[in-house]
């Protein structure tokens, strides 16, 4: 059940971002409502991660406006985004190798007990949180460097859930995960929606997208290439928008078939 609020909690209006000679994003529009899961799809290099990083304050935008609950905001550092309530799981994870799991989960917002870091409560909460994600980690007290790729990924996801975010951005969260853990992450996305959070989910896996997303926004070569409600959009339409290849034989035939079916 989706109940979408009128004002989007997060909206991008005409956002552009340039890296030297590369125009990574051109005039991108995106809206995320509370209680909505927006899947952001596109080919490799389409600019998905760049878009995420502009929202998270890692790369400030060059042009355009970011609106938060209807009001324009300036996000120039990760701190700004966190202050608004944006939690991000980056594709490249961004964890500190020398800190242990608990230290990474709470990095930047340690719990304090009489002004001193409260390791005990942090460790207890970390164990509980990780167990809800059904992840097996040798110990919450070993450095991140000794975890497998998937274990790190789950730590990064768990990190985004600590605190009280309003929008959660997941950049290919299931790329390194096994079957069970992927299912857990998709369940988690649904739980986030039930809790009325906005979710941006980036994935190359159409099955995952169709399973949990409400809206699919397609990026192609740094520009919007359509935004579809998931329910009434076919797999092929999304693929066609991603590749931009309407002259592709397979998609053209598929398109023709759906057109005929519509008649």
């Amino acid at each position, binding site marked *: 059940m989706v109940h979408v609020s009128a004002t989007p909690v997060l909206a991008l209006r005409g956002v552009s971002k340039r890296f030297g000679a590369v125009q990574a994003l051109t005039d991108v529009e995106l809206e995320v409502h509370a209680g909505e899961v927006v899947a952001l799809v596109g080919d490799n290099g389409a600019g998905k991660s760049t878009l995420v990083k502009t929202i998270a304050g*890692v790369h400030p935008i060059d042009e355009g406006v970011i609106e938060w609950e209807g009001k324009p905001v300036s996000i120039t550092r*990760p*701190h700004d985004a*966190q202050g608004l309530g944006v939690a*991000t799981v*980056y594709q490249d994870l*961004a*964890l*500190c*190798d*020398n*800190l242990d799991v608990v*230290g*990474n989960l709470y*990095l*930047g*917002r*340690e*719990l304090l*007990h009489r*002004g*001193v*870091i*409260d390791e*005990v*409560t942090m*460790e*207890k*909460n970390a*164990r*509980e*949180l*990780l*167990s*809800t*994600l*059904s992840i*097996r*980690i*040798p*110990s*919450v007290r*070993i*450095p991140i*460097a*000794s975890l497998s790729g998937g274990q790190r990924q789950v730590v990064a996801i*768990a990190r985004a*859930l600590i*605190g*009280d*975010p309003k929008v*959660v951005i997941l950049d290919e969260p299931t790329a390194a995960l096994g079957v*069970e853990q992927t299912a*857990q992450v998709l*369940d*988690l996305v649904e*739980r*986030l929606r*039930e*809790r009325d959070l906005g979710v941006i989910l980036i994935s190359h896996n159409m099955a995952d997208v169709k399973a949990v997303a409400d809206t699919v926004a397609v990026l192609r070569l740094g520009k919007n290439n359509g935004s579809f409600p998931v329910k009434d959009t076919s797999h092929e339409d999304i693929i066609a928008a991603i590749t931009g290849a309407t002259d592709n034989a397979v998609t053209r035939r598929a398109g023709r078939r759906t057109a005929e079916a519509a008649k």
Partner: protein
Amino acid sequence: MSDTSKPVQSESSEPVKGTKTEKAATATEAARAEGVVEGQETVAPADDPTAAPVTVVDPRLLIREEGFKGYLTEFKRKVKGGELGQIPVVLGLIVIWTIFQLQNDRFLSADNLSNISYFMSATGMLAIGLVFVLLLGEIDLSVGSVSGLASALFAVFVTEHGMNPWLSLVLTIVTGIGIGALHGWFFAKIGVPAFVVTLAGFLGWNGLMLWLLGSSGTINLPSDSGPIHLLGQSSFFMDQAIIGAYVLAGLAVVLSAVGNFGEQRRRRAAGVPFRATSEILLRVGLLALAAFVSAAVLNNASGVSNALVIFLAALVIVDFVLRRTTYGRKVFAVGGGIEAARRAGINVPLVRITVFAISGGFAAVGGMFFAGQTAGASLSAGGGNTLMLAIAAAVIGGTSLFGGRGTVWSALLGMLVIQSIQTGLDLLNMNTSIQYMITGGVLLGAVVIDSVSRKSQKAAGRG
């Protein structure tokens, strides 16, 4: 392990009960039974309250047995994995002491050990500041020059301007902090490599000191009062009262025991793994042994010098800051991954600037210790091998040059090694040339151990 893969049921009907009013200290069994996540709301609901506690632990790995046996196996595993910690330096210290004692039986006499403990405090202060910088994976080459400049500044304030010595002390330390912050600013904001900035500082501040002392050469300071008296060789804790040393040792043991058992109690209450009582008793026992033997030896000489007491107090405070405060956590985070730290909302330039400021501040304090040793400011203060010894101390003590790993206690252990070598060679009447070569060799050895242990940590997946 069937319970680890227990699917989490839809818990929408079971809202998170985590409330901000729950205090961590009241983490009681009752709260746990309700599945409450204290202190902070998490989006993922707490686990099903009726379920058995779900283990997050991989059945294959690293399950630490309870009790003392677990402690031993954990220890062995760490050593194999390249986490040598303070083992090499303790072994090294034993070897060094044995060799010197065989060469000259006055080496382990109370008077000589008392000398070591007094003279190591000055360079040790520089080493404390360097530990901060090394934790970032950077280096500060200016600490020696800054310490020399500090002693000269203090002397000029007191003798030429007739300033109150304590006010001069404060001004001198503030100047050191300012100098460090300036280095940090060039490094963090302009992007000049720290190596180059502080190399410039090494030359520049030494030049400023020579210019300040230019006309007079050496400035002598009255050594009967003020900070110079306090840091001098004839100033002792509680005026040489025998009880003074034991009070300090007892304080250390009590603090350690209270801290350890307090943590054990809190951890047990929260249901997370805690240290076995036998392990705590072993640790506290070893500390008590070391503390009371040292106290007895120093009492046999003339007591605990105030310089040493200040050095030890600084170590305790800095250790607390690094391990228990958010600032310390930020320093480790920046040392372990700049981008990760930045994305976690940490102000990386600010951490860098403050770390260099701390290094400059400790360098100035160290300079005051040098002034206390000689009761004056001389042209050679903070020169020679002061810088190398301070860096060597931090690295020998086990703080990694690669950033992100280390403890401030390495300043103490490293200085014990360095000062033992210096004092020992002095006793044997070896001249400076030999001292330099041996210290250089020891530094190289420490760096080799650091690099090798880093490699084997990588191999063991703990780099």
